[in-house]
């Protein structure tokens, strides 16, 4: 074998099909006799449903069927479940209002599904859907999380008084208050973490199919986790046995969280397929995606950091109102709690932290995990506070961080997490060097000479990846296990097909996982194929989110590989007439130690399938192993980002001059892919801070940013080429030493950017996104003050 595959920049196995147009995304699937669905969606943010008439739609050309919430209720279809139970400060379960697939009695946001209309073609389905007459009684709406709890605010759900889902807290308030009482300095900030719309470039798509032959369903869907989708749909909504439902998520064009969830449309097309006895396809258009894909973020936060006179952190207090939208989406409840407040220690040994989170319902699209999910919000709180504290105390922002970095591991934070390894000074050192912080003063001068303002900001983030172990997640309210499964099928001639419960929708698992397998088995990478995304092929899976694929899914594969290698050792020992204890496996070869006896991995595999000379008394034939892996802990990637911006004070236009990211992801399998993940994450983070912001009209609840004409997606000309590097402290509790890299960029970038722009403008705070208008306004307000 050639050079080691772990750590190599291997070109991706999946690229050829994507580059030649033969990928198979869900919308590329066309089934025989397929018909098309369109959804009637509420044009109002809040209204009572008086009457729905489909009479006119029925007369439309190509019409096949239409169903409303009443039909779904009559069919006893359940509502969409929430997968995480949060227990509030009083020990009570969170409020879980029903979330019907099609609205019943009321609509609660613009875009809420009212009816499904099925016709021969997509255009006909849309034509017919327009003819469905809905009599709405419009009700007052509330879209702002803070206003939703005010007296007299419109109430969304009877079961949730004051629109409150829960008030939850972590940390000891008394101890925190005491720390603040003795502080030499307190830094306080109030800000909004802006609502985002994920906008994977592939819009969602779902095709339901039904077979009368065996009373079974198939759902083709753009999903990040087909097994979870199946579990939720069968067990909680449709009351079907899982073996009668197959979920296929083939090529998926990006997810970023938005394709984790079980959506109403998925259920509706699956159920309708049986009613019309034909496959039913629904493809979202972009306008629909804006008002039906789960949104992200949307926090209002007041945060305080207490310090002694030297800038040592004494305590942190955080109060957040999280807008969860009109209903609880699949993981909505854990994002602003478990995935947020537990990260508030950041990279620092802040001894006490108290955080209270109030989750509220509003007349907006449900909010759920979006790239980073809670961790970008936490990092924003911590890193904005730290940078602001440094400025207020006239300390160098890198120095105040270094004074407070955790340096001893393992480290138990005051907010439940146990960090296993890390070296925060190492990433800070490397980032400062790569960003040429030493040369910054000269660059700032040069900008000033041109009449421009220049600023530099840091963010030293930490994240928790894997969302596991299951027992811990379960004790915190998770209603699912959070392990991963993998299967290694060795074929008689020694090539390998690996089945993984992780799902790739851009991450390149077909390459990274193949590198791991080929490296362990000493095979060329061409001999290994990875299969994912089909419940009828893959044994089980929890899917891909929370940067968990390599750390959890990859480890499951390694565990299965260990079993394959161990069984092969027994077969090889038999073939070579040696004691098993004397057989070693290295780079694809079983050897008897101290002899020249050897068997190639392929020979051993062949013997397992053509077992003429085989230890039948001890072993079954075949070489096929699976493993389920439940991690011992989260993994904790961390790093330092440095952002340098130049502002045109006349127009408010901001240009990112340099962006430097040094990450510690533990061991890296494919640096090319890892860098790509960082670039993408950074751009989404910069998108949040500079460009993107979902806006609703306060009075009417209309979505104002309902297309790319108004919702500003990052384009190539908005971002720079990045400077990225890594440092490595291997994860201590998985065999690959890996941590995960998918979300880091989106987690660290917003704080680094806003720290840079506030530095440039000389202001304490700057709301996200820092559009030219917002920057100009901020400068104008500063001048007036």
């Amino acid at each position, binding site marked *: 074998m050639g050079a080691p595959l772990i750590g190599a920049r291997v070109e991706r196995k999946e690229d050829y099909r994507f580059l030649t147009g033969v990928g198979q995304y869900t919308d590329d699937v066309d089934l025989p006799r397929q018909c098309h669905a369109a959804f009637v969606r509420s044009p109002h943010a809040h209204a009572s449903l008086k009457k729905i008439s489909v009479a006119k739609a029925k007369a439309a050309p190509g019409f096949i069927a239409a169903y409303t919430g009443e039909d779904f209720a009559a069919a006893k279809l359940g509502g969409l479940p929430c997968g995480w139970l949060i227990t509030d400060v009083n020990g009570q379960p969170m409020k879980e209002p029903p979330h019907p697939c099609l609205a019943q009695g009321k609509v609660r946001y613009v875009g809420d599904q009212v009816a499904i209309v099925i016709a021969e073609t997509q255009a006909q389905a849309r034509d017919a859907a327009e003819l469905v007459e809905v009599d709405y009684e419009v009700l007052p709406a509330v879209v702002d999380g803070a206003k939703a709890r005010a007296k007299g605010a419109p109430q969304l759900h009877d079961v949730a008084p004051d629109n409150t889902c829960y008030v939850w807290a972590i940390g000891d308030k008394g101890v925190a208050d005491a720390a603040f009482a003795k502080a030499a300095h307190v830094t306080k900030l109030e800000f909004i973490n802006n609502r985002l719309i994920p906008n994977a470039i592939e819009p969602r798509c779902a095709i339901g199919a039904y077979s009368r032959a065996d009373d079974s369903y198939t759902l083709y869907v753009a999903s990040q986790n087909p097994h979870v989708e199946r579990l939720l749909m069968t067990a909680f909504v449709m009351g079907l046995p899982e073996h009668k439902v197959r979920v296929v998520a083939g090529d998926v064009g990006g997810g970023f969280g938005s394709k984790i969830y079980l959506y109403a449309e998925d259920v509706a097309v699956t159920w309708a397929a049986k009613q019309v006895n034909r496959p039913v396809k629904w493809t979202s258009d972009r306008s629909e995606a804006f008002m039906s894909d789960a949104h992200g973020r949307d926090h209002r936060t007041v945060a305080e950091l207490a310090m002694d006179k030297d800038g040592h952190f004494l305590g942190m207090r955080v109060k957040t109102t999280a807008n969860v939208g009109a209903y609880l989406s699949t993981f909505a409840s854990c994002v602003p709690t478990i995935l947020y407040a537990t990260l508030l220690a950041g990279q620092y040994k802040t001894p006490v932290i108290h955080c209270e989170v109030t989750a509220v319902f509003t007349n907006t699209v449900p909010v759920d995990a979006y790239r980073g999910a809670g961790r970008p919000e936490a990092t924003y709180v911590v890193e904005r506070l730290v940078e602001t504290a440094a400025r207020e105390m006239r300390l160098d922002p890198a120095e105040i961080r270094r004074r407070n970095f955790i340096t001893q591991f393992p480290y138990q934070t005051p907010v439940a997490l146990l960090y296993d390894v890390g070296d925060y000074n190492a990433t800070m050192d490397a980032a400062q060097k790569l960003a040429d912080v030493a040369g910054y003063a000269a660059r700032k001068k040069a900008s000033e000479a041109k009449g421009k303002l220049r600023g530099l900001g840091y963010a030293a983030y930490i994240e928790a990846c894997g969302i596991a172990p299951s027992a811990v997640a379960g004790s915190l309210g998770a209603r699912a296990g959070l392990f991963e499964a993998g299967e290694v099928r060795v074929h008689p001639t020694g090539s390998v097909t690996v089945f993984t419960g992780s799902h790739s929708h851009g991450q390149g698992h077909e390459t990274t996982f193949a590198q791991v397998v080929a490296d362990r088995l000493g095979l060329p990478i061409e001999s290994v194929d990875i299969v994912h995304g089909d419940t009828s092929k893959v044994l089980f899976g929890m899917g891909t989110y929370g940067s968990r694929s390599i750390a959890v899914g990859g480890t499951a594969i390694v565990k299965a590989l260990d079993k394959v290698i161990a069984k092969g050792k027994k077969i090889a020992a038999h073939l070579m007439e040696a004691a098993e204890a004397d057989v070693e496996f290295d780079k694809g070869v079983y050897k008897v130690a101290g002899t020249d006896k050897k068997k190639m991995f392929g020979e051993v595999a062949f013997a397992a399938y053509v077992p003429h000379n085989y230890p039948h008394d001890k072993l079954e034939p075949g070489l096929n192993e699976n493993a389920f892996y439940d991690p011992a802990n989260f993994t904790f990637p961390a790093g330092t980002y440095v952002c340098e911006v130049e502002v045109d004070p006349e127009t408010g236009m901001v240009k990112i001059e340099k962006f430097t990211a040094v990450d510690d992801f533990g061991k890296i399998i494919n640096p090319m892919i890892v860098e790509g993940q960082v670039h993408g994450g950074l751009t989404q983070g910069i998108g949040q801070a500079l460009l993107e912001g979902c806006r609703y009209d306060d009075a009417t609840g209309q979505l104002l*940013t309902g297309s790319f004409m108004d919702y500003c997606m990052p384009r190539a000309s908005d971002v720079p080429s990045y400077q990225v590097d890594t440092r490595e402290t291997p994860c201590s509790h998985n065999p690959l030493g890996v941590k995960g890299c998918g979300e880091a960029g989106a987690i660290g970038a917003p704080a680094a950017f806003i720290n840079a722009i506030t530095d440039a403008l000389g202001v304490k705070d700057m709301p996200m996104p820092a559009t*030219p208008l917002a920057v100009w306004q901020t400068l104008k307000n500063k001048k007036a003050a």
Partner: protein
Amino acid sequence: MHAFKYHRPSSVDAAAALAKGEAKLLAGGQSLVQAMKLRLASPSDIIDLGTIKDLAGIKSDGKTVTIGAMARHAEVAHSADAKKAIPALAALAGMIGDRQVRSMGTCGGSIANNDPAADYPAAALALNATITTNKGKHEADKFFKGMFETALKPGEIITSVTFQVPKRAAYMKFKNPASRFAIVGVFVADFGGTVRVAVTGAGPAVFRQADMEKALAAKFDPSSVAGIKQKADGLNTDLHASAEYRAHIVTVMARRAVEAALK
């Protein structure tokens, strides 16, 4: 998109005969097809001008540049004649939309549509253009009536637009970060003695900035406009820019356009 009847006339006269009622003329389609997809426009008939001969082409006679109604933005941006005679006009065409859109979008379509944030109307107004139709000629000053409104009558089809060659000119566009249309675009054209300043994106329709024109006619220098404040009254306010901000940007873009014209 709602259903419609499609026509492909081979002459302007044939197209004009079809253009009645709820029928719509289709030039490049880069605005109209979008509106139809979103079901914001639902014409009964589409009259495709794409195969009518002699609506394309770019000509220059030293004093004017004439652009055929169906000349694509990319053709204008790359036209040696346009670049030589009025570089600012070629540059403006090269700033519209993106390169794929520029390969389809047309001068005539843009001017007939008169989107308040479109670029071409600024060029037409600042370069004192004549809009030629199958029915006659329009001066730019009397052509752009209001938001998406022009002097075109039903059945009237733009065949070409003739721009006057200035002594020097420049167009400065401050883009909407999301749509990349103009939040404010200012076209400054110095004809030696008279100066025309046209502003797009800021108001309900393109307009001339008389104070700036006067100041620049007296002295064609950035300092002449730097202190002239555009009134915010009547300017557009949206998510991306308030009227007050737009007014401020008009001055900044005007000054920068003068700087660019002098380069």
